[in-house]
């Protein structure tokens, strides 16, 4: 089970059947796997905030949604995550490629990357930082149920060294 397979298997075993995405190079293989899965509806979006709205609608319609994005997309989504997802207690799984972490070679990723965990803490949203594929699989598999329980999004941050 490589790094992408672990996430994919976790999503499948969590019952995720609806995914919106804004790509990251680290998510490339995972996005291909999702596109090849007939049971998952995959909707690429223009901006992450839009994806939060689409996930809310999909949940209302009976789907189990997740968003795949870079951590930069968290910044683009904060109000929607609060005044839509949390307000109505919509569950949502957020899989984030956590850029700006150890090994980052693009300086532009660093400021948001450094602040991302503290932003999630300030939002009072649960998140995981799995160190390896086995941990990622276990965290993701449990995350949907935790999100239902919390009535809030649950995030999985995947640092550069994870991949």
């Amino acid at each position, binding site marked *: 089970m490589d790094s992408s397979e672990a996430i994919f298997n976790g999503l499948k075993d969590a019952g995720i059947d*609806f995914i919106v995405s804004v790509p990251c190079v680290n998510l490339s293989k995972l996005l291909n796997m999702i596109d090849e899965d007939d049971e998952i*509806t995959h*909707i*690429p*979006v*223009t*901006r992450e*905030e*839009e*994806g*939060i*709205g*689409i*996930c*809310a*609608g*999909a*949940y*209302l*319609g*009976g*789907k189990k*949604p997740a968003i795949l994005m870079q951590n930069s997309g968290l910044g683009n989504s904060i*109000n*929607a995550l*609060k*005044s*839509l997802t949390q*307000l*109505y*207690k*919509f569950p949502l799984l957020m899989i984030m490629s956590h850029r700006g972490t150890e090994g980052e070679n693009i300086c532009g990723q660093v400021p948001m990357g450094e602040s991302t965990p503290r932003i999630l803490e300030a939002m009072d949203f649960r998140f995981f930082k799995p160190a390896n594929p086995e941990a990622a699989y276990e965290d993701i598999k449990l995350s949907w149920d935790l999100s239902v329980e919390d009535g809030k999004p649950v995030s999985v941050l995947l640092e550069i060294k994870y991949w």
Partner: protein
Amino acid sequence: MARRQAIENIMKSIDDEIVVCNIGFPSRELYDIKDRDKNFYMIGSMGLASSIGLGLALAKPDEDVVVIDGDGSLLMNMGSLVTVFANNPRNLTWIVIDNGAYGSTGNQDTYAQVLDLVDVAKGVGFKNAFNFEDISLKDVIESDDASFIVYNTEAGNSTAPIIDLGPIVIKTRFMNAIK
């Protein structure tokens, strides 16, 4: 004619359809005019009415979904025009009530005053992009492509009260109604 009358006219064509309604006075006016379990009222997240509608339309292909949006909200989420067009859910009808104003915050002007939003949608590629006055809404709802409709009105809010349902009640009764 202001927004409230437009919503009344829209609702004359609504029977069993899902309605997703924009935040602020649009939802308050819809609630006052015709509350129903299949109305989803937005209380936050300005701009995302069409995105919520798109998610619903994709998840519920056997239901017709009507979004009541506004020009200020559309301008906040223009990318949604592209995502809706590219996915083209046949069961989604997106109505933008264009009063050229941020109605719920005191009727400040929007840039929609210098735009023709039907032309914008046609430019993106929508085959079904219409002015409300030129169409039968029911026929458009039943068409085989996603549709974008602009309903031009004057600015102004009615005296509709604040919705006295909490978000969890709005969600729960809506989900039970579309199960």
